[in-house]
């Protein structure tokens, strides 16, 4: 009577894959205008903390908290994005990395708001909340052959899956539009883009803000998926991890960071049997990738070959 093959552990892994996918896309979006941001762990933490504080202390419903988290992260993105316009390449990367660290230190020290290193616990978990309200409405997951924890994990997965699909669809469509062409133009030649009448400042800040907002959105979902957050979740390691998703999977096509995030999140899980040497393997893998396929797993020619056609959109192209 039960759907036994539906294993919450696999759904759990899949859910984190999806959150990491969102993060991978977030760095890609900023990169689409030629800006490398390593501050996305910081924006993620802003989104996570905002919704955690609003839902646990101010009684916000979860969806409102998630929206608020994304918006606050976007505002932070604007605040960081505008002054950072002067910086390019490695300098922008390091400055945004610095921003992420500063945000983390502030969260550690601002105890009255964030609880410091102890973090915020008992954040409403989306699966459990959903189950609770459905049960109140008289629904039992057993009636569709699911155990309680299966239902919880499945609903978390489905919510995240829908969110991720929306985000990918959003940026896929944006990529092959006027805005996406403007992004690609800015990435390839800023001056020529200006001469084509593109407000490069606007589009750079827009892309930066979209990246920040998506990170914040991912962070908010993360908070409601794990129900506990602390500054330790948003360290330098997270920032680097997000970057690695994009560059490993491929930073020249939207699908690159998507697959990068999926593979690199699932891989350590698959490698659990050799868990002692997991990170050693991980490190070697990174080096090997860069040596043998530096543009990442997925690049536009590969996508075109797989799709059997030439890409029409400009947003999926790169200039370094």
């Amino acid at each position, binding site marked *: 009577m039960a759907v036994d093959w539906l294993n919450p552990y696999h759904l759990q892994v899949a859910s984190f894959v999806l959150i990491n996918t969102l993060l991978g896309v977030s760095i890609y979006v900023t990169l689409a205008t030629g800006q*490398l941001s390593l501050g996305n762990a910081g924006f993620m933490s802003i989104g996570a903390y905002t919704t955690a504080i609003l839902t646990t202390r101010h009684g916000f419903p979860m969806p409102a908290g998630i929206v608020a988290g994304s918006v606050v992260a976007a505002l932070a993105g604007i605040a960081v994005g505008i*002054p*950072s316009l*002067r*910086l*390019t*390449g*490695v*300098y922008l*990367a*390091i*400055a945004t*990395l*610095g*921003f992420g*660290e*500063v945000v983390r*230190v*502030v969260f*550690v*020290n601002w105890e009255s708001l964030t609880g410091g290193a102890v973090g915020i616990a008992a954040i409403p978990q989306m699966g459990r909340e959903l189950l609770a309200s459905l049960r109140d409405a008289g629904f039992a997951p057993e009636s569709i052959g699911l155990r309680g924890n299966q239902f919880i994990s499945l609903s978390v997965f489905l919510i995240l899956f829908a969110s991720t699909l929306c985000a990918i669809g959003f940026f896929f469509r944006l990529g092959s539009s006027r805005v996406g062409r403007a992004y690609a133009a800015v990435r390839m030649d800023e001056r020529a883009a200006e001469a084509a009448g593109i407000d490069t400042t606007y589009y750079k800040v827009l892309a930066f803000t979209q990246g920040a907002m998506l990170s914040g959105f991912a962070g908010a979902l993360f908070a409601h998926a794990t129900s506990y957050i602390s500054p330790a979740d948003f360290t*330098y390691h997270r920032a*680097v991890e997000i*970057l*690695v998703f994009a*560059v*490993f999977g491929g*930073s*020249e096509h939207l699908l690159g960071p998507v697959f990068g995030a999926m593979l690199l999140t699932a891989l350590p899980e698959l490698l659990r049997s050799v868990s*002692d*040497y997991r*990170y*050693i393997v*991980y*490190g*070697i*893998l*990174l*080096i090997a*990738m*860069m*040596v043998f396929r*530096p*543009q990442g797993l997925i690049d536009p020619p590969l996508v075109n070959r797989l799709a059997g056609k030439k890409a029409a959109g400009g947003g999926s192209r*790169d200039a*370094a």
Partner: protein
Amino acid sequence: MFAEQLINGITLGSIYAIVALGYTLVFGVLDIINMAHGEIFMFGAFIGMVIVTKMNAPLAAAFAGAVLVTAALGYLLERVALRPLRGRTGVSHLAPLISTIGVSILLENLAHHIFGAGNQLFETPFAEIRFTIGSTTVYLVQVVILAVSVVLMGGLSLWLARTRSGKGLRATAESLETAELLGVDTKRIITATVVIASAMGGIAGVLVGMAFNYINNQIGLSMGLKGLAIIIFGGMGSVAGAMAGGLILGLSETFVVAYGSSGYRDAIAFLTIIVVLLLRPQGLFGRAAPEARR
């Protein structure tokens, strides 16, 4: 207390400076940030620890061993993670950043397996020699660290300015193609740069062990991030900038603890980066505008 804190700050700052020198040298020539530099430094510290504490060998042997091993690591890094990426078309400028991150993860976890997790005692009689000026105790190690950092910086500047290989290195830094046209063996120069930078990391590692008596496999990351902050602050590729930046960061971290709140100690480095980059993006001693470098 001021004098003591000043000494603390200078010691910390000198170590930062030596770590930053390694970053700045590689960036100056290759235009890339070697994210594995911190971990190479950490390896140097562990090799020094094994030689001095476990084998009871003299300190000079520790320096020699650390320099040898880190130089070898630098060579391997260049051969495995950097050279294959060089000169290939269509390679993102992020590729070397990622490959060196790969090396750093690898080294951090190798150190864990080889030397174990947790703090390891770095014990050397030399570290106990101290003298008192007025009410302030100064350890000889602290003086040595400052001296070594000054000597390294001076030596590096002289080497770059005066010697043939130094000039070749600067030419390579200006333009790889031009240097090649001028007959500079750029492959050798680049390898030498990474090896020298790594060896300096090895020296810094032993010095850290002597100064703080303990090392663990995480020091690479924390020192590495500080080193990164310093070269932004001092100006990428600037030797004087690394030195000044290191000292300023060491002193300000110490004095924030002494007269302010220790919780924000780690934020200083990064806050400084942000402010400096926005007000003077080329850094304290940098010349080229950052827009020129991609």
